[in-house]
Protein backbone atom coordinates (compact mmCIF):
# COMPACT_ATOMS: atom_id res chain seq x y z
CA UNK A 1 0.00 0.00 0.00
CA UNK A 2 1.36 3.37 -0.91
CA UNK A 3 0.48 6.08 1.51
CA UNK A 4 0.32 9.74 0.85
CA UNK A 5 3.13 11.19 2.93
CA UNK A 6 3.92 14.40 1.07
CA UNK A 7 3.26 16.51 4.16
CA UNK A 8 5.39 14.32 6.39
CA UNK A 9 8.25 14.33 3.91
CA UNK A 10 8.21 18.08 3.33
CA UNK A 11 7.97 18.86 7.03
CA UNK A 12 10.77 16.41 7.79
CA UNK A 13 13.09 18.10 5.30
CA UNK A 14 12.83 21.35 7.25
CA UNK A 15 12.31 19.96 10.73
CA UNK A 16 15.28 17.58 10.63
CA UNK A 17 17.65 20.48 10.01
CA UNK A 18 16.12 22.49 12.84
CA UNK A 19 16.22 19.57 15.27
CA UNK A 20 19.83 18.80 14.35
CA UNK A 21 20.88 22.41 14.89
CA UNK A 22 19.00 22.57 18.16
CA UNK A 23 20.59 19.34 19.34
CA UNK A 24 24.05 20.76 18.70
CA UNK A 25 23.03 23.89 20.60
CA UNK A 26 21.82 21.76 23.52
CA UNK A 27 25.04 19.79 23.44
CA UNK A 28 27.30 22.88 23.53
CA UNK A 29 25.08 24.61 26.06
CA UNK A 30 25.41 21.77 28.51
CA UNK A 31 28.63 22.86 30.10
CA UNK A 32 27.15 25.61 32.28
CA UNK A 33 23.43 25.48 31.57
CA UNK A 34 20.75 22.83 31.14
CA UNK A 35 21.65 20.56 28.26
CA UNK A 36 24.56 18.27 27.64
CA UNK A 37 25.69 15.21 25.78
CA UNK A 38 22.83 12.97 26.78
CA UNK A 39 20.02 15.35 25.83
CA UNK A 40 21.85 16.57 22.75
CA UNK A 41 22.40 13.00 21.62
CA UNK A 42 18.81 12.05 22.30
CA UNK A 43 17.40 14.94 20.28
CA UNK A 44 19.83 14.23 17.48
CA UNK A 45 18.74 10.62 17.41
CA UNK A 46 15.11 11.77 17.31
CA UNK A 47 15.96 13.70 14.14
CA UNK A 48 17.55 10.59 12.64
CA UNK A 49 14.56 8.46 13.63
CA UNK A 50 12.29 11.03 12.04
CA UNK A 51 14.27 10.67 8.82
CA UNK A 52 13.91 6.89 9.00
CA UNK A 53 10.17 7.22 9.57
CA UNK A 54 9.48 9.50 6.66
CA UNK A 55 11.95 8.28 4.04
CA UNK A 56 12.19 4.60 4.89
CA UNK A 57 15.03 2.53 6.31
CA UNK A 58 16.72 1.67 3.02
CA UNK A 59 16.95 5.17 1.65
CA UNK A 60 18.37 6.63 4.83
CA UNK A 61 20.82 3.78 5.13
CA UNK A 62 22.13 4.61 1.66
CA UNK A 63 22.80 8.19 2.69
CA UNK A 64 23.92 7.81 6.29
CA UNK A 65 26.45 5.01 6.08
CA UNK A 66 27.08 4.60 9.78
CA UNK A 67 26.87 1.38 11.72
CA UNK A 68 25.05 2.62 14.78
CA UNK A 69 26.17 -0.31 16.94
CA UNK A 70 29.76 0.62 16.27
CA UNK A 71 28.97 4.29 16.80
CA UNK A 72 27.64 3.50 20.27
CA UNK A 73 30.72 1.40 21.05
CA UNK A 74 33.05 4.17 19.89
CA UNK A 75 31.12 6.67 22.00
CA UNK A 76 31.54 4.60 25.14
CA UNK A 77 35.22 4.10 24.32
CA UNK A 78 35.71 7.87 24.03
CA UNK A 79 33.90 8.45 27.32
CA UNK A 80 35.92 5.81 29.18
CA UNK A 81 39.07 7.06 27.47
CA UNK A 82 38.64 10.56 28.94
CA UNK A 83 38.04 8.95 32.30
CA UNK A 84 41.26 6.99 31.92
CA UNK A 85 43.25 10.17 31.21
CA UNK A 86 42.88 11.07 34.89
CA UNK A 87 44.29 7.69 35.87
CA UNK A 88 47.42 8.30 33.79
CA UNK A 89 48.10 11.56 35.67
CA UNK A 90 47.64 9.84 39.02
CA UNK A 91 44.18 11.26 39.75
CA UNK A 92 41.05 9.19 40.41
CA UNK A 93 39.17 7.71 37.48
CA UNK A 94 36.82 10.19 35.73
CA UNK A 95 38.64 13.26 37.07
CA UNK A 96 38.04 16.19 34.75
CA UNK A 97 40.11 19.26 34.03
CA UNK A 98 39.73 22.51 32.16
CA UNK A 99 41.80 25.45 31.00
CA UNK A 100 41.51 28.74 29.13
CA UNK A 101 43.08 29.06 25.70
CA UNK A 102 43.31 31.82 23.10
CA UNK A 103 41.80 30.44 19.93
CA UNK A 104 41.95 32.31 16.59
CA UNK A 105 38.26 32.97 16.02
CA UNK A 106 36.58 32.35 19.36
CA UNK A 107 38.94 34.47 21.45
CA UNK A 108 39.61 33.39 25.02
CA UNK A 109 37.74 30.10 25.29
CA UNK A 110 37.32 27.61 28.07
CA UNK A 111 38.15 24.09 26.96
CA UNK A 112 37.24 21.25 29.30
CA UNK A 113 37.90 17.53 29.16
CA UNK A 114 34.24 17.12 30.11
CA UNK A 115 33.41 18.18 26.54
CA UNK A 116 35.18 15.13 25.13
CA UNK A 117 33.44 12.95 27.68
CA UNK A 118 30.12 14.47 26.63
CA UNK A 119 30.91 13.83 22.97
CA UNK A 120 31.36 10.17 23.86
CA UNK A 121 28.07 10.15 25.74
CA UNK A 122 26.28 11.83 22.83
CA UNK A 123 27.65 9.29 20.32
CA UNK A 124 26.70 6.41 22.60
CA UNK A 125 23.17 7.75 23.04
CA UNK A 126 22.67 8.32 19.31
CA UNK A 127 24.02 4.88 18.51
CA UNK A 128 21.91 3.10 21.10
CA UNK A 129 18.66 4.97 20.51
CA UNK A 130 18.72 4.65 16.72
CA UNK A 131 19.84 1.05 17.03
CA UNK A 132 16.91 0.18 19.31
CA UNK A 133 14.40 1.73 16.90
CA UNK A 134 16.05 0.00 13.94
CA UNK A 135 16.09 -3.42 15.53
CA UNK A 136 12.44 -3.14 16.53
CA UNK A 137 11.49 -2.03 13.04
CA UNK A 138 13.37 -4.86 11.33
CA UNK A 139 10.70 -7.40 10.60
CA UNK A 140 12.12 -10.87 10.59
Amino acid at each position, binding site marked *: MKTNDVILKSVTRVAAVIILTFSIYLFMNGH*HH*PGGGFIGGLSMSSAIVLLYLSFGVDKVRENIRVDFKKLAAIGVLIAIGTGMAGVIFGKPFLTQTFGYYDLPIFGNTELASALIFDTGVALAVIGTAVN*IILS*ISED*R
Partner: protein
Amino acid sequence: METLMVILVGILISIGTYLILSKQLLRIVLGASIVGHSVNLLIITSGGLKRGSAPLLGEKAAGFADAIPQALILTAIVINFAVTAVVLVLSYRAYKSFGTDDMEQLRGNENE
Protein backbone atom coordinates in the same frame (compact mmCIF):
# COMPACT_ATOMS: atom_id res chain seq x y z
CA MET B 1 1.82 18.15 47.62
CA GLU B 2 4.06 15.20 48.48
CA THR B 3 1.07 13.31 49.86
CA LEU B 4 -0.84 13.84 46.63
CA MET B 5 2.13 12.60 44.64
CA VAL B 6 2.45 9.50 46.79
CA ILE B 7 -1.26 8.75 46.27
CA LEU B 8 -0.75 9.20 42.53
CA VAL B 9 2.18 6.78 42.67
CA GLY B 10 -0.07 4.31 44.46
CA ILE B 11 -2.74 4.64 41.77
CA LEU B 12 -0.20 4.21 39.00
CA ILE B 13 1.31 1.14 40.62
CA SER B 14 -2.14 -0.42 40.99
CA ILE B 15 -2.80 0.22 37.30
CA GLY B 16 0.56 -1.32 36.46
CA THR B 17 -0.13 -4.34 38.65
CA TYR B 18 -3.54 -4.82 37.04
CA LEU B 19 -1.98 -4.73 33.57
CA ILE B 20 0.84 -7.10 34.55
CA LEU B 21 -1.69 -9.62 35.84
CA SER B 22 -3.52 -9.71 32.50
CA LYS B 23 -2.87 -12.35 29.88
CA GLN B 24 -1.85 -10.32 26.87
CA LEU B 25 1.88 -9.93 26.44
CA LEU B 26 1.70 -6.34 25.25
CA ARG B 27 -0.38 -5.32 28.25
CA ILE B 28 2.18 -6.88 30.55
CA VAL B 29 4.94 -4.90 28.87
CA LEU B 30 2.91 -1.71 29.25
CA GLY B 31 2.17 -2.55 32.88
CA ALA B 32 5.85 -3.06 33.63
CA SER B 33 6.60 0.23 31.95
CA ILE B 34 3.94 2.05 34.00
CA VAL B 35 5.31 0.56 37.22
CA GLY B 36 8.76 1.78 36.22
CA HIS B 37 7.51 5.31 35.62
CA SER B 38 5.54 5.48 38.85
CA VAL B 39 8.66 4.42 40.71
CA ASN B 40 10.51 7.30 39.06
CA LEU B 41 7.79 9.62 40.31
CA LEU B 42 8.32 8.23 43.80
CA ILE B 43 12.04 8.93 43.61
CA ILE B 44 11.51 12.54 42.54
CA THR B 45 9.04 12.92 45.41
CA SER B 46 11.54 11.44 47.87
CA GLY B 47 13.80 14.48 47.52
CA GLY B 48 10.94 16.78 48.47
CA LEU B 49 8.98 18.85 45.97
CA LYS B 50 10.35 22.36 46.24
CA ARG B 51 9.96 25.50 44.22
CA GLY B 52 13.50 26.38 43.40
CA SER B 53 15.77 27.06 40.52
CA ALA B 54 17.94 24.52 38.78
CA PRO B 55 20.89 23.55 40.98
CA LEU B 56 23.52 25.16 38.77
CA LEU B 57 26.31 27.57 39.60
CA GLY B 58 25.53 31.18 38.73
CA GLU B 59 21.76 30.92 39.16
CA LYS B 60 20.83 33.59 41.69
CA ALA B 61 17.81 32.14 43.39
CA ALA B 62 16.47 31.83 46.89
CA GLY B 63 16.21 28.06 46.83
CA PHE B 64 17.48 25.20 44.76
CA ALA B 65 15.83 21.93 43.89
CA ASP B 66 17.48 18.73 45.11
CA ALA B 67 19.64 17.55 42.23
CA ILE B 68 20.24 13.96 43.28
CA PRO B 69 16.73 12.53 42.69
CA GLN B 70 16.77 14.19 39.27
CA ALA B 71 20.06 12.55 38.41
CA LEU B 72 18.74 9.25 39.74
CA ILE B 73 15.57 9.24 37.68
CA LEU B 74 17.44 10.29 34.57
CA THR B 75 19.48 7.12 34.96
CA ALA B 76 16.43 5.07 35.91
CA ILE B 77 14.48 6.32 32.89
CA VAL B 78 17.30 5.37 30.57
CA ILE B 79 17.56 1.90 32.08
CA ASN B 80 13.79 1.51 31.94
CA PHE B 81 13.88 2.56 28.29
CA ALA B 82 16.56 0.01 27.44
CA VAL B 83 14.81 -2.80 29.30
CA THR B 84 11.48 -1.97 27.67
CA ALA B 85 13.14 -2.06 24.27
CA VAL B 86 14.62 -5.50 24.99
CA VAL B 87 11.27 -6.80 26.26
CA LEU B 88 9.42 -5.43 23.25
CA VAL B 89 11.78 -7.11 20.81
CA LEU B 90 11.61 -10.39 22.74
CA SER B 91 7.82 -10.26 23.00
CA TYR B 92 7.59 -9.63 19.30
CA ARG B 93 9.89 -12.57 18.60
CA ALA B 94 7.82 -14.72 20.95
CA TYR B 95 4.61 -13.61 19.25
CA LYS B 96 6.05 -14.49 15.84
CA SER B 97 7.40 -17.79 17.07
CA PHE B 98 4.34 -19.00 18.98
CA GLY B 99 1.68 -17.26 16.95
CA THR B 100 -0.02 -16.05 20.11
CA ASP B 101 0.44 -13.35 22.70
CA ASP B 102 -1.61 -15.09 25.34
CA MET B 103 0.57 -15.87 28.35
CA GLU B 104 -1.76 -18.72 29.28
CA GLN B 105 -0.71 -20.58 26.14
CA LEU B 106 2.95 -19.74 26.66
CA ARG B 107 2.91 -21.73 29.87
CA GLY B 108 5.49 -24.46 29.45
CA ASN B 109 4.72 -28.13 29.61
CA GLU B 110 7.36 -30.13 31.39
CA ASN B 111 9.11 -32.52 29.06
CA GLU B 112 9.33 -30.62 25.86
